């Protein structure tokens, strides 16, 4: 069983402060962490490995050089091998470009590792971007079936049984390998790294795959030029004034009251 886990190094959003003048986020000096949802994905892979020690877990991250720290953290926790995808031409990629690059990265890693991945595990979303698009897009690029918002996952005879989070009810869904599964927060915490693994991870070599590792990649589909979307600004929304609850007993009478208020304020 071979599992690829996609991880992203993100700023610890609990440490981010707001610039009171510009109303934007102050990212300088904020510590970086493994994206929380990716940690759940890694934990899911680790639990499969607990039951089947022959499971091979590889983590991959696309990011700047210092994302090696996040990858080493993953090695300390449960991963057997890590790769960093990093190159100038990848910079500025949106989710579509990122997922395309990750598709290429996965094929390359399969070649280097001499294996085929039975599954790709991703976090549901990155806590800095919050798009939740990369995992599903990657599935589409690969042509694999996908399940999103997974809470737990078990491997059984080459297929996976996934508990998917629902609004009111959770669902148990079976999915054939190879597949893509994205994970949300489960009912348990991810494991801590052990000291032994931490020390080994510190010494581990993390291969870096830059543009030269992908000679056939379509350059028009990566980086800024390959990104149909762009983040123009990140800001904190203005706090709304205190709201008002209108409850006149029925929907009709409440609506009449609302209309009157809006009319008085010349909104309508």
């Amino acid at each position: 069983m071979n599992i690829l886990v996609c991880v992203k190094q993100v700023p610890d959003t609990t440490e981010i402060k707001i610039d009171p003048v510009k109303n934007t986020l102050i990212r300088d000096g904020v510590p970086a962490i493994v994206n929380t949802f990716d940690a759940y994905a890694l934990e899911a892979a680790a639990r499969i490995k607990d039951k089947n020690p022959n499971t091979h877990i590889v983590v991959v991250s696309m990011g700047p050089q210092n994302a090696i720290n996040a990858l080493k953290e993953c090695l300390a926790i449960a991963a057997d091998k890590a790769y960093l995808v990093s190159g100038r031409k990848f910079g500025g990629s949106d989710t579509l470009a990122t997922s395309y690059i990750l598709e290429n990265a996965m094929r390359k890693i399969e070649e280097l590792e001499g294996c085929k991945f039975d599954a790709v595990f991703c976090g549901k979303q990155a806590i800095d971007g919050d798009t939740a698009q990369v995992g599903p897009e990657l599935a589409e690029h690969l042509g694999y079936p996908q399940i999103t918002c997974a809470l737990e996952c078990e491997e059984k005879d080459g297929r996976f049984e996934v508990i998917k989070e629902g609004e009111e009810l959770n669902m148990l869904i079976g999915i054939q390998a190879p597949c893509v599964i994205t994970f949300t927060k489960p009912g348990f915490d991810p494991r801590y790294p052990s000291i032994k693994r931490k020390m080994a991870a510190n010494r581990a070599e993390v291969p870096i795959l830059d543009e030269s590792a992908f000679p056939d990649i379509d350059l028009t589909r990566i980086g800024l030029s390959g990104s149909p979307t762009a983040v123009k600004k990140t800001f904190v929304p203005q706090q709304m004034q205190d709201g008002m609850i209108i409850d006149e007993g029925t929907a009709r009478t409440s609506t009449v009251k609302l209309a009157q208020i809006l009319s008085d304020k010349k909104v309508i």
Partner: protein
Amino acid sequence: MDFRLNEDQLALQKMVREFTDKEVRPIAAHMDETGEFDEELWKKMAELGLFGILAPEEYGGSGLDHVSLCVVMEEIVRGSGNMYNWLVTSNGPNTGAILLYGTEEQKKKYVPKTASGEFRCAYAITEPDNGSDTRSMKTIAVREGDHFVINGTKTFITMATLADRILTTCKYVENGEDKGYVTLIVDRDCPGLIIGKDEHKMGLRGTSLNTVFYENCIVPAENVLGEVGKGMEPATACLSEVRVSCGAFAVGLAQEAIDLATAYAKEREQFGKKISQFQNTQFVLAECQTKVDAARLMTWRAASELDLGNGDRLYGSMAKYYSGEICNDVVRKCLQVFGGYGYCTEYPIERIYRDAKIAEIFDGTAEIQKVIISKAIGIR
């Protein structure tokens, strides 16, 4: 001479610090109030490998050095002083003495399970009438065929309530004659082993401190550690290591006290300004930090000597004596920064003040350390 921690030690420090903040701090007050043992926390610490820091990898440990143990100890006791007891009962003589004096069967039987946290351990030397004067102990072991029979009482035994085994040092008597000492690995299910009451203590209330009774306690002969008649050797073999851990405990508590007092001083206002802006507060905390840094370096130095294979007790004794003394001084001064709030249990400094006192007493009192130091420097 580079006094900095190496990369591995820095990574370890960060790892344990984050773990302490997330898992230990939130339960520290409850543990102190109730004395309840947190099984979940124990399991998490076991997963990290905190009970096998020094044990070699071949026996399931992490195979790290004594400086690394100090780093771990200092960080984790900042969350709760009780963590000292959790770590030292596993990483101390119950691993070290067995590795030094145990047979291969004993090493394989006991060390991996201690390192993994599956076994909880205690070690018993002190008696009601024999604290510092350990050699006058009255608990006796007599050999009868394929087993030993122990009779006596040990006191102030940390974590005996939960221990799966208790490393016990006794007087060895043969044919009615005193023949030295013997150290035995007393498994919990040995007949005649009775765990007595848990003392109600000033500090470290989250871990039990028991009297242990041996009433014709039968221990298999294969559980002798080292040589019969030379049982003081395994008993004292790890004292230097334990004293270095004591030093790290004291440094950790003191550093936590300083950080708490500094944060409080920056918030508290009196006479129209933050109390951190008064020179008295600044000078007090500056003096405290200087002392703690000195104690930390002495502890690291003692640990480093152990790593270099220097079993000389001098450095461990100096580190323990000095760290224990400044810890109590520093914590007292830091509590004073809090004023009346420092006297209230709502503020962690109150618990740290109660926990700190033991640093001058346990695992060899400050006075015993001074005996060792004065002998080492030739003052008789």
